């Protein structure tokens, strides 16, 4: 075994970065797609190729069922939420367009928007409040002030766990002739997401965070009829190989090249598990998160960023201390106590600027499936000891 794979037992609280451990069913599905179903899906029609094709087909259906998507063809498998965000932004925006975006966005949104701004897309930022929550009224004012092609907002913050008013933003966008494009990386799996109810135009989701799938896979939902240009052209394996141009049908249009079948298989298995157990798992992780939040705000010198303790959140929070820098806290939690957390800016400098922590960073604790109340107590005890 590679030394890189040797780890010691730990309290894992970095679910906002990626969930761990993955459910055994997910691991088995990944292995199955590399063994019995190891052919290239959507290409040949011999037994193993069809098995691989059916893995992708069934996984797409499971993800659609989980996310409330009526037609599974409207979900494209991509390499992750970053690719999904790039596709929905670059596929839908053109020079001269104006977009309105929240100040809490992750680099998966802000960097593609920066690149688009250099091409002539105008980016207007709506400031979130000091707890990281955006307000629909602020968006409404911004959208009404000038013609707007798209409203762009995360569903939940990867720094504070704040849940954004996506359904309200959909109404505002549509009443003003704009699209609503959502980064759902931190929401799916941790919230009961129903895209048919939310009425979003595009929704990007990570497969490996709250959805519990493997890394290297994500999904992009595009509402029926929305004509987003594809980022890549290439082989799609279907009945249009002789055509010079990329097929325009879904999902092939957005899936050029051999897909990540093992990742898709794992994500499909995870989606089926979440359909069966998601409500229970969400309740369990919220119980752990609530204990953690209540305990942290009682530690002298610790400031928990984000909404008030009793406000609904996805199970992610960040903190700073007036005793130790955040990198030291994260390092010592790992070294002394075997507690895995992440310090820094969490690929979200916009969010940290909003929260006033761009210069200091923060320590982020992300709770997820498998965490226990004992984990919360272990972290609280460690921080009390370190920061006393």
């Amino acid at each position, binding site marked *: 075994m590679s030394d890189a794979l040797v780890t010691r037992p730990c309290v894992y609280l970095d679910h906002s970065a990626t969930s761990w451990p993955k459910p055994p069913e997910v691991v088995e599905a990944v292995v199955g797609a590399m063994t019995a179903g190891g052919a290239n899906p*959507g290409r040949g*029609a011999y037994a193993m190729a069809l098995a691989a094709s059916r893995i992708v087909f069934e996984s797409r259906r499971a993800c659609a069922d989980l996310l409330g998507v009526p037609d*599974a063809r409207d979900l494209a498998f991509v390499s992750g939420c970053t690719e999904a965000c790039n596709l929905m932004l670059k596929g839908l925006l053109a020079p001269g367009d104006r977009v309105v975006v929240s100040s809490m966005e992750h680099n998966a949104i802000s960097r593609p928007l920066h690149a688009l701004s250099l091409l002539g897309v105008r980016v207007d930022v709506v400031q979130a409040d000091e707890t990281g929550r955006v307000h629909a009224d602020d968006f409404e004012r911004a959208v009404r002030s000038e013609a707007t092609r798209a409203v762009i907002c995360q569903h939940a913050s990867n720094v504070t766990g704040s849940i954004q008013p996506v359904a309200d933003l959909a109404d505002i966008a549509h009443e003003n002739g704009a699209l609503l494009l959502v980064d759902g990386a931190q929401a799916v799996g941790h919230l009961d997401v129903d895209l048919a109810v939310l009425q979003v135009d595009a929704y990007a989701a990570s497969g490996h965070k709250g959805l519990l799938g493997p890394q290297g896979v994500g999904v992009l939902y595009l509402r029926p009829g929305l004509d987003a240009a594809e980022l890549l052209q290439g082989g799609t394996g279907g009945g249009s*190989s002789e055509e010079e141009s990329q097929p325009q049908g879904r999902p092939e249009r957005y899936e050029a090249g051999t897909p990540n079948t093992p990742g898709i298989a794992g994500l499909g298995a995870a989606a089926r598990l979440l359909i069966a157990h998601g409500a229970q798992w969400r309740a369990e992780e919220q119980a752990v998160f609530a204990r953690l939040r209540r305990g942290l705000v009682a530690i002298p010198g610790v400031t928990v960023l984000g909404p008030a303790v009793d406000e609904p959140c996805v199970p992610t929070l960040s903190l700073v201390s007036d005793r130790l820098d955040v990198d030291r806290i994260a390092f010592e939690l790992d070294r002394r106590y075997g507690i895995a957390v992440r310090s820094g800016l969490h690929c979200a400098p916009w969010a940290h600027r909003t929260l006033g922590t761009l210069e200091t960073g923060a320590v982020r604790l992300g709770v997820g499936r498998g965490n226990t109340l004992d984990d919360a107590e272990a972290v609280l005890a460690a921080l009390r000891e370190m920061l006393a």
Partner: protein
Amino acid sequence: MNPGPRRFIAYGFASVHDALAAESALEAGDVRVTAIPSPRALGELCGVAIRIAPEDAEAAKAVLARAGLPPRGSAEIDDI
């Protein structure tokens, strides 16, 4: 008297996803179905098509219409 070669009907679809969705719907509708490489007779050289027995054609059409998966094309082909 030689009854002649057995024949089958091949249905083509817009995508592999649609072909597998058709397979799934037909199986659920108790129509015997086999996924096959798209035959040249459908005007395609790649992808997946659906094969059924001629006597199941009417039942298959009804199932596919209910499922919102009308075939992009069909061909009756001699088996070997």
